[in-house]
């Protein structure tokens, strides 16, 4: 298992490093002079030269890249061109909000998606299955900002039950989480259904039934567990997507998340904000991917056996069986 973790950690570092180099290089091609961003409308030639000197913008590419990576390793993400303040505190201030939307959205989406997907697969072609298929198609195809505005219209302006914007109390979170949750549940429902349909036709499920196990145990223990790998992949992909991609939902509900911060950086050509913001989101994504890889190892016996997790126990068990068989036929 340790070998597996180390291998994943090495992949994580390589991915991050490649991302930093790629993004830094990409930002080199973005047209525009950062000095103009700093100085605004009243920029003069004299001031532009001074800003170039201050920000060391005239240094060669490789020098700036090395300096950026060096600073990043020390936790320094640089300063915003626009505000001239450190970027890291601004990112960390926004992280909990994005995490709240992403995590709770995915929890809600997973709960709904798993239940609906399993029931839909078990009751294939029933009325329930068809209704769920329709709802999940609607959820997957409806744009998030439209769903968000629809919720605001109904639950804020018409019914007056929930606040329209903000992130201060549990009530404030209901609509943003419901928007993300509904969207996530659609994909998870589809994936759970198709994955379960594949699994419940397998021989081992039939064997379990033949052994007289309850329907619940057959479906959950033998069916869902084996169908869970692709579902987990979808969940992981969704979380990664939501870490930086809930911009529209954040805008409608006025939640200052990571996505909006980076988007503002793009609009104002604040290169360090864009660069560090995207690197930070990538870092979060690699952590989520790493955790997912760990979860695979617990769920998928093939990964366990490949990396020796639980091998000792298997060998011990094999030894006992061999001893038992020494005395006669099995």
């Amino acid at each position: 298992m340790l070998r597996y973790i180390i291998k994943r950690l090495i992949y994580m570092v390589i991915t991050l490093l490649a991302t930093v180099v790629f993004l830094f290089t990409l930002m080199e091609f973005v047209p525009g002079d950062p000095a103009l961003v700093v100085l605004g409308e009243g920029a003069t030639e004299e001031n532009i030269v001074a800003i170039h000197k201050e920000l060391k913008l005239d240094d060669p590419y490789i020098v700036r890249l090395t300096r950026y990576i060096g600073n990043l390793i020390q936790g320094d993400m640089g300063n915003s061109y626009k505000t001239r303040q450190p970027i890291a505190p601004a990112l960390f201030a926004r992280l909990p909000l994005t995490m709240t939307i992403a995590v709770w959205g995915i929890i809600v989406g997973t709960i709904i998606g798993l239940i609906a997907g399993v029931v839909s697969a078990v009751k294939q072609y029933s009325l329930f299955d068809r209704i769920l298929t329709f709802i999940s198609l609607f959820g997957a195809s409806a744009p998030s900002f439209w769903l968000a505005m629809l919720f605001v219209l109904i639950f804020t302006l018409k019914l007056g039950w929930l606040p329209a914007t903000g992130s201060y109390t549990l009530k404030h979170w209901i609509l943003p989480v419901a928007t993300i949750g509904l969207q996530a549940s659609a994909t998870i429902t589809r994936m759970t259904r198709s994955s379960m349909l594949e699994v419940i036709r397998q021989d081992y499920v039939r064997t379990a039934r033949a052994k007289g196990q309850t329907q619940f145990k057959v479906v959950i223990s033998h069916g869902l567990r084996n169908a869970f790998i692709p579902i987990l992949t979808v969940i992981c992909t969704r979380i990664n997507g939501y870490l930086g991609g809930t911009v529209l939902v954040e805008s409608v509900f006025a939640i200052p998340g990571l996505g909006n911060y980076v988007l503002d950086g793009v609009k104002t050509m604040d290169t360090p904000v864009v660069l560090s913001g995207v690197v930070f989101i990538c870092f979060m994504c690699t952590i989520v991917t790493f955790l997912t890889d760990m979860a695979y190892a617990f769920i998928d016996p093939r990964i366990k056996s490949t990396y020796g997790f639980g091998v000792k126990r298997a060998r011990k068990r094999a030894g006992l069986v061999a001893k038992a068989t020494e005395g006669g036929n099995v």
Partner: protein
Amino acid sequence: MKKFVSLSLALTMLLSLITFGLAGCGGSTGTSGGTEATAPAGGGETQQSGFSFDTGDPDTLKVIQNFDPEVFQPGNNDEQGYNRIVRQIYETLFMMTPEGEVTPWLATGYTWETPTRMVITLRDDVKFSDGSDFTAEDVAWTINYAKEIALPNSHYNVITDAEVVDPYTVALNLKEPCMTLAAHLCNSQCTIGSKKAFEEGKGDWMSASVVGTGPYKLVKYNPGDMVQLTANEHYWRQGEPKVKNIDMRIVKSNESAATEAKTLNYDIVIGANTREFAAIDAIDGVHMNEHMCANTTYLLLNTAKAPMDNIKVREAFARAVNVAATVKLTYGDFGQPASALVAPNILGRNEATYQKYYGAGHDVETAKKLLAEAGFPNGVDLEITVESTDTQRCDMAEAIQAQVAAAGINLKVNKMESAPMREYLGRGNHQICIYGFTSLTMEADGFLAQLQPGSAALARIGYDNQNFFKKYSEGAATEDITARGKIWEECCEMLMQDYTMIPVWHKALGAAVRDNVEGFYWATDYEQVYYQFISK
């Protein structure tokens, strides 16, 4: 089975813990990592409470703003939205009255020792929010520091340096005469910070160095989310601010701001979608406060870029555009279709001159004729650049695209993000663009000053008329306001005569204000709101 369920539960709990753990870090209810202003030495207690939801609280004004300041440094940003927040903490030497007159504020007056040396006397009863005295040292430091680190403040461009004459007198040395400098210094970009707080706080413009003479002081800032202010107990004006606390929410989406205005959860909402104004106004308990400001939206014609370098093409374009229909379509009855080069009540405005050049209005046949004379009998391809996030200007560009097609002008709409667009225009790569200028000194000078050699704004019209520059300098050096007004009129006429720009819309400002709120008004010069005069 057990393992699977345990793993799922464990993962869920772990994620929940991470989320709530992070959310709890900042000690606020929802947003963490925010800045709590440090209690100023000798100052009062800092407010620790979260965001208030009680609109009935007479001690707290609940406001929605559409700008995230990100930092609280005097003059850090030239956006009106930024200064609308930061101006509550820091103040200017002079202030513009609602009638557009310059009145001393932190200053008591000024004299011109020479045409390039302004001597300003300061009030001796002003204290910063940390209890320290406001002196000439702070004024000189603020201006010199802004110039040293090249803050984006064009009002200081004419100033060479500031020097302390005595503790309550400061002198500003200028590169060239600028008789409207006092009006420039009214601008909320020209607020004064505390030198002592800067040095002691090591330039921490999020907390420790945020010390001003303004009616309010910073209590808490959650990036992108909210700003909490409370009354400065050392404030020099008796009886102000009238409301002790301000809770400002930052809502950038104008649709969401309009929704909040309709919920009646806020006392003042700035930044609501103009298309929702009528709907908001129809709701009991809230009304729209609308006011004309000093800003005009223009179609800027780049005289240095072919084929716009041909005056006949520019004039043809002016004839092909239907200004009144464009404004009606884009803004409805909000604001006014342009009737002069600068907005109403601005010194240097002359409607007769406007009529002379643009009075003929929308005339497709003349436009076609002019194009033919310019060598384009079969029409011409042009491009208009507009900021993609400004939906109303995008609508305006599309309306104009349809109008000019009748005259044989094939207009391509080029939508760009704000910053890349600024650079694109600054380099003079465009043919036509939509842009607004504010006459923030309440004289045409506030707008003409931006069109001087070396400026990014001048590149937008590619204008190189030496007579225009000389005339402007003459106006800037003229002390007599009547004579100066005449010169500004002449400068405006030059711009119109050469068809460098087509004024389209005189901008209005709007805010949704609860009926129980009194004292709210829009300061015309730089779209400013002074919360210290507001009561509820």
